[in-house]
């Protein structure tokens, strides 16, 4: 069956797969959200150990999902990989820098002779949790607002802004406001999810004050995320976008492009609406009831919202990585993808994904059946 898929279908399929991985990553950023909440919700060393040991059993999944997101984009949309990573150099380098800090933050924080002291490693986790996600959000924002690059005839990238990607957040422009809003939305959403996960995974009867703090943090961070969410949604309804305007693949500015995309694909509206409702339901369960299962609603909701965010700028003849300075250099899923042969081979490999998801889910269930207790933080392997 895969053998008979046409090129366009494969390109759509691979953007969908990359988007699913990206959306799952956004859900898994509850780890980063939790890290950035550490100093706020955990006041005693025991509480800190609980938070770290809960998140520390999941950090690798988030990390690996990010690596897979990069690998999948490299294999399926290499022109995006080369243009964005080579062009928006500094934004990606800084993101990577924050992810270098994360694993050692967990593993070395409490170890004797760790040279720098626990606080530095907790600082590493905070930087990864806050700055890392903010920059990823700003980078995603450029899928809508565009970037400063030109491609040569050989498709080699030249970045025309001296900030090399950081202008997405640092240049005084409306685009920056949108990009930063995307970043801050992701940061506050990650923190909302982080508090939900911790409420779910920790045995909080032993530390009732932290239970209160976590539920409060969930509500506060949800409220903080709202203005940015509204700004993004409002902008998307009115924004001009970058679309393919003729048969030759010419890129042009199209007014109300993302609204048009939503109307052309009403299922995206359904995804977005369902996602938002689920996030609200999750927040409601955590903050207005004594239930602990909010993370499942918030998590699924985030996946759906994330999928919409990543699919909206790519489907319906849209340039998903537009160039502000040279429209015709803009990347679409049609001009940036691998050859049909590679996409087919990768589609066969992708048949493993359900199997991978199944064992990840099983192990998750097996490891999370029992909540993390104070005694677990004294275990020899504990972080």
């Amino acid at each position, binding site marked *: 069956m895969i053998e008979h898929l046409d090129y366009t279908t494969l390109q759509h399929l691979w953007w969908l797969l990359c988007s699913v991985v990206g959306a799952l990553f956004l859900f898994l950023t509850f780890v980063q959200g939790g890290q950035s909440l550490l100093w706020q919700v955990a006041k005693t060393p025991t509480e800190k150990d609980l938070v770290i040991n809960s998140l520390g059993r999941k950090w690798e999944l988030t990390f690996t999902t990010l690596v897979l997101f*990069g690998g999948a984009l*490299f294999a399926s949309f290499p022109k995006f990989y080369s*243009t964005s990573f080579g*062009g928006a150099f500094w934004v990606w380098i800084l993101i990577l820098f924050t992810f*270098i800090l994360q694993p050692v933050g967990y593993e*070395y924080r409490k170890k004797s*002779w760790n040279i720098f002291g626990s606080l530095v490693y907790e600082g590493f986790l905070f930087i990864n949790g806050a700055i890392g996600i903010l920059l990823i959000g700003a980078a995603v924002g450029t899928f809508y607002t565009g970037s400063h690059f030109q491609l040569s005839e050989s498709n080699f990238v030249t970045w025309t802004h001296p900030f090399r990607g950081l202008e997405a957040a640092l240049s005084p422009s409306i685009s920056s406001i949108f990009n930063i809003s995307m970043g801050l939305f992701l940061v506050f959403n990650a923190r909302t999810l982080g508090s939900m996960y911790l409420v779910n995974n920790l045995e909080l009867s032993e530390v009732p004050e932290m239970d209160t703090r976590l539920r409060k943090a969930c509500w506060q961070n949800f409220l903080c995320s709202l203005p940015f969410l509204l700004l993004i949604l409002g902008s998307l309804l009115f924004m001009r976008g970058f679309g393919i305007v003729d048969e030759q693949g010419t890129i042009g500015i199209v007014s109300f492009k993302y609204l048009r995309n939503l109307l052309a694909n009403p299922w995206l509206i359904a995804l977005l609406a369902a996602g938002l409702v689920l996030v609200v339901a999750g927040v409601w369960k955590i903050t207005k009831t004594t239930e602990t299962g909010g993370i499942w609603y918030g998590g699924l909701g985030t996946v759906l919202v994330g999928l919409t965010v990543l699919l909206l700028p790519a489907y319906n003849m849209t340039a998903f990585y537009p160039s502000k300075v040279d429209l015709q250099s803009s990347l679409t899923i049609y001009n940036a993808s691998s050859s049909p042969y590679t996409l087919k081979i990768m589609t066969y490999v992708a048949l493993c994904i359900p199997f991978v998801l199944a064992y990840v889910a099983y192990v998750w269930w097996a490891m999370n059946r029992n909540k993390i207790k104070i005694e*677990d933080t004294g275990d020899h392997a504990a972080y």
Partner: protein
Amino acid sequence: MIENLDLSMVNWARAQFALTAMYHWLFVPLTLGITWIIAFYHTIYVTTGNEEWKRLTKFWMKLFGINFAIGVATGIILEFQFGTNWSNYSWMVGDIFGAPLAIEGIIAFFLEATFFAVMFFGWNRVSKGFHLFATWMVAVGSNLSAVWILVANAWMQYPVGQAFNPETARFEMQNFAEVAFSPYAVNKFVHATSSSMLMAALFVLSISSWYLLRGRHVVMAKRSIVVAATLGLFASVFTIFNGDESAYQIAQVQPMKLAAFEGLYEGRTNAGLVAAGIVNRNKKVYDTQEPFIGFNLHIPGALSLMANRSLGSFVPGMKDLVYGNAEHNILGAAQKMERGKKAVASLEAYKTAKKTGDQAAAAAQLVTFNEYKEFLGYGYLQKPEEEVPPVALTFNAFHVMVGLGALFPLIFIGYLHFSRKGTLTEKKWLLGFGTITYILGMIASQAGWVVAEVGRQPWSIQGLLPVSVARTNLTAGTVQTTFFMFLILFTLLLIAEISIMAKQISIGPEEN
């Protein structure tokens, strides 16, 4: 295509790749190798129920965790660095090179990441059987990830299963099986994993020797030594054999690398293998200076035997490969460059003809291009001598690797011999030397990568894409900045890692 060529940027980008890869490789061999040893100990614990083995398993697991965290931290930059510093490369070969990286993520990394948490934290959370299964899955997952990254690396050394598409001006995959099962990839994997097993054995040996010298944890140390030395002996002998096979493959597909690591300027029949010698660093491929300073020790005929499996065969030297050798039917880089320039020119002309709609001219240019396309990469070299990699570095790295590689089996035999006689604890000289063998193993392992990567310069993809084209359009200053950022951060983390590791080793298994 190579406008604004800034060689110092290319060199800084190469330095950064070397820095990050070498730091990463400080931790990877141990991860690859020790997971098998831990799985082995864990299996004994589950089958015997003996708590002593559980303590042993937990102890090595703890050291593994400290090493693993920094291994992961230093690893993420490598994947993304292809994009940040080598973006032209990423575009030109993303079709082929990206696939193994994505497969590595889907098949290997998730296995490792998912079961890692179970292995560490599953003692009281999952059944004993499932816990043991998780430990084995971590070993399988980490070694599977090595498969795919080595497939990707092997493809750069021996680019099979691809074709250049003049329409898109990039290399595209034609046959996935050829890429995945390339003999170069298979051998690279076997060599890297067997040497990693050897490294893990040296790690256990070094720490256990230190315990014996101190008279601490004597039973555990003796037990560990027997397991490690047995495993290490097999691994080291196996590594020597597949290393020889690697050299044979290099002779077939990267003869310049072989000539460089042997310091062979003039090709010869019945060529000898240099056992020891000091390379003349001032020697150029075009001059008549002696390649070695003073005396050098040769094993007659051994290089011919290694390179071609035939004692009397001809092994081309650097001079033959640069300027050609008609007698032995060897095309030199100079001639290849001429053809490469024709390939580049016809590709440009083809594109222009297509743009102007001149179908006849396009077809004619395409015929010319196809005739010369295998030399396309040579069209971007400035002079034929550029094809010679840094000889002294490659030579020294190769000989350090081989010299140490030959020493390791003797060390393991020594340990096994005195263990059998029951006199190991009295042999302080052996135990003293044993404590530093892990560092020697690390030097050998790093040297191996220097041979592989420095030896293939100036190519990012052998014969097809030089590093000068593969780069990103960045200034040298930008790459210098990130180079020092990584140098400082990785060094600080390494210091912390060594310090933590030292403390955990000094605490030992009892108090865990």
